[in-house]
């Protein structure tokens, strides 16, 4: 039997023990890495979005260089792929997908959700995005709004800066960040009050 067809849990245990015995990794290191990865969440991206909504100069910097804009808010971007930010407007709705694997702006959104990695999302997002968003997320993009699908194929990672919803005048950043969900920053949903 091809050794790679071994049950995945057993394969992981065996690989880990071998690497630990060879001094390449340690259990403490694995635990530490798991904890730091768990700490990244869509709350980080939401803070960026909220700041861009209230601070026009930050919005400009964020669209120019997402990595620097994230670092401004204390988000650790070292060793991460460059972050690009796509601005949705009343004329254009952005949707991010990775048809080749599952590239995702993890530094600012955390682990990719299950649906993002699925074959059906990867297939349908580029070909019939309006139908996909309407049938699965009840997100209806009006006919006069252009849909721009961004296939994240290479070295950048992309997040969406959604349109600030009506009814949020006078809200502070923290309150605004509270209404921004993971899907809003990929473009499957839009922020709502």
């Amino acid at each position, binding site marked *: 039997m091809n050794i790679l067809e071994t049950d995945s849990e057993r394969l992981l245990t065996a690989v880990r023990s071998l690497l630990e015995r060879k001094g390449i990794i340690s259990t403490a290191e694995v635990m530490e890495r798991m904890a730091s990865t768990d700490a990244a969440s869509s709350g980080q991206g939401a803070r960026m979005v909220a700041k861009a909504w209230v601070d026009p100069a930050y919005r400009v910097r964020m669209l120019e260089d997402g990595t620097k804009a994230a670092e401004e808010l204390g988000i650790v971007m070292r060793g991460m792929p460059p972050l690009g930010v796509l601005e949705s407007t009343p004329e254009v709705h952005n949707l991010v997908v990775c048809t080749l694997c599952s590239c995702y702006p993890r530094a600012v959104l955390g682990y990719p959700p299950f649906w993002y990695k699925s074959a059906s999302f990867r297939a349908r997002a580029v*070909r*019939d995005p309006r139908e996909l968003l309407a049938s699965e997320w009840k997100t209806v993009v009006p006919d006069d709004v*252009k*849909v*721009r*699908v961004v296939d*994240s194929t*290479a*070295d950048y990672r992309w997040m969406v800066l959604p349109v600030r919803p009506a009814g949020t005048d006078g809200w502070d950043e923290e309150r605004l960040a509270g209404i921004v969900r993971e899907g809003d920053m990929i473009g499957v949903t839009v922020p709502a009050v």
Partner: protein
Amino acid sequence: MFLAGETVRVKDQWPEATGPVHIRTPWYVRGLEGEVVRCLGEFSNPEDLAFARPAEKRPLYHVRFLKGAIWSEAKPDDELLIEIFGHWLEPVGQERP
């Protein structure tokens, strides 16, 4: 190098047919024309990185395609924006390889 606004064609090449490869150009845009939006910088060629070979830096472009040129589903003026390495692009007007 390609400039923003330039029309380019994605090479209609299928290295998958000839052996193990790692390609970051989706199948559905090969052979199609698009418009360069901007150069995103230079990155090590993933086609070599994937096999632990020395990898040259190659320019990476954001290229826009009209959805209607690819698939017939509704709203042909919707668009696709895709990262494509320069070595997969050719100026329009040049003979296909």
